């Protein structure tokens, strides 16, 4: 398939610039949208299952101006979701990064904690929702804590791996150059683990977006997850789709932001391939 190879930028014909590639990508999307629209109008696709693009555009406008449920605009949904994600994500990072640095640096701690971490990481975060509600109620606290839970294990694992996989030669070089144990940690181990820590943070962000939709499905009408849930209740698949699109755009924007941040903060690092998921 021409379209998929173009999008992944591999095996492009000689002479193709990035601009041509983007143009082809945009054209493909435009053609697909047009076909969808035509199929909807011709009655091939039902409006309930596949509301056509023009209808979705109207829904977006409706969500921005009137809101859904009435009075709650899409910006309020985005704002509520963003607040929860940021709080949960930051909480996870603040807890997991220092903890990971310690655990990764002490062999006994690493061995002792490995089974716990493996188990805790395998628990699908959403399955903890009933427990979280029992412990912390149906309010914001439960939602933020669940996001933090989902993110923290991935961050923790990657920080530990980052510390453990610091090149032994760099440590030797650091010791030969007169580093005290403290300097060895702050000037060698810590900077050497940052690409891996960053990689963990990126995976965690993706997880936060998976968790958020689930935790917003009960006890609130604000948030993109709540929007989707309300849409389902009122058979508004158009609103559900728009909610989905907003989550995707929002997630995409945040991960681009992280990529930018990484390039600014770690200009020395190439892209890192191996990431613990």
């Amino acid at each position, binding site marked *: 398939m021409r379209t998929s190879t173009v999008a992944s930028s591999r095996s492009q014909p000689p002479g193709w610039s990035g601009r041509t590639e983007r143009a082809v990508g945009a054209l493909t999307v435009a053609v697909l949208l047009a076909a969808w629209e035509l199929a909807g109008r011709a009655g091939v696709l039902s409006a309930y299952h596949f509301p056509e693009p023009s209808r979705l555009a109207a829904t977006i406008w409706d969500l921005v101006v009137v809101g859904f449920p009435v009075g709650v605009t899409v910006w309020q949904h985005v704002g509520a979701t963003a607040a929860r994600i940021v709080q949960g994500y930051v909480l996870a990072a603040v807890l997991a990064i220092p903890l990971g640095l310690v655990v990764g640096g002490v062999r006994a701690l690493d061995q002792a904690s490995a089974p716990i971490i493996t188990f805790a990481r395998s628990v699908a975060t959403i399955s903890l929702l009933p427990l979280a509600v029992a412990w912390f109620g149906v309010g914001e606290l439960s939602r933020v804590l669940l996001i933090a839970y989902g993110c923290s294990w991935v961050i923790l694992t990657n920080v530990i791996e980052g510390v453990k996989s610091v*090149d032994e*030669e*760099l440590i*030797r*070089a*650091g*010791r*030969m*150059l*007169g*580093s*005290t144990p403290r*300097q060895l940690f702050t*000037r*060698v181990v810590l*900077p*050497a683990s*940052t690409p891996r820590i960053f990689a963990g943070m990126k995976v965690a962000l993706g997880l936060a977006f998976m968790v958020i939709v689930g935790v917003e499905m009960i006890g609130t009408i604000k948030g993109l997850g709540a929007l989707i849930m309300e849409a389902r209740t009122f058979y508004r698949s158009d609103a559900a789709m728009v909610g989905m699109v907003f989550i995707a755009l929002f997630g995409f924007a945040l991960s681009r932001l992280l990529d930018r941040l990484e390039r600014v903060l*770690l*200009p*020395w*690092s*190439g892209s890192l391939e191996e990431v613990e998921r």
Partner: protein
Amino acid sequence: MSGPAAAPKIVVSHVSRQFPADEPERGLALQDIKLTVIPNEFVCVVGRSGCGKTTLLNLIAGLLRPTEGEVLIDGRRVEGPGPDRGMVFQYSALFPWLTALENVEFGPRNLGVPRNQRRALALELIDLVRLRGFESKYPRELSGGMKQRVAIARALATDPEVLLMDEPFGALDELTRAEMQEELLRIWEARRKTVVFVTHSIMEAIYLSDRVVILSPHPGRVRKDVRIAMPRPRQRSSTEFMAYYEDIHSSIF
């Protein structure tokens, strides 16, 4: 060269090193090694892989402890790694998050040398290894030969009297390697260091050193100690050079 009366710089005295059975280099790596290096001497250690030459270097560096015997620098026992010995690793071991200049500054910074002073020192060393113009590049932007130039400058930055080099040019292509050998001799002559240089290349050892120490494997022992009495610069194609080559080669194989 210093006369025979000079006090030895490095003394490796009856050193053995046994590795635990669960480590990759298990067993007796070195047995009863005796080696004396005088100040400003350039000594190459050669031998087949697994003969313990890197282990010997790590013992002098203090990165490993001997199971028996001791290593003395200026008569003082080596208890651990330290900036009085500069080390150059095979794969440069530059800190990838630091620029070339910052890598060179790393040692002085640990020792608390003020910023301006260590910057000036690092720039001087960057000049010495002929990397002016590349000081703000990160290691991944440098070629293999350039990385080793930075690594040499970094090792010199704490002004050690001893330079330990672990196959530093082993990963370079042949032309770069020959160029780096010239450069190392030039730097050695400019700075007068005591050098212990590990290599598996006999040609490299003869070209560079005052003495070639040949180790035999399993367990590592000193098999032969050959003084290279040729003036520098040396001609790799001379009959004298080839005679040394034959001599050393036949004692390894």
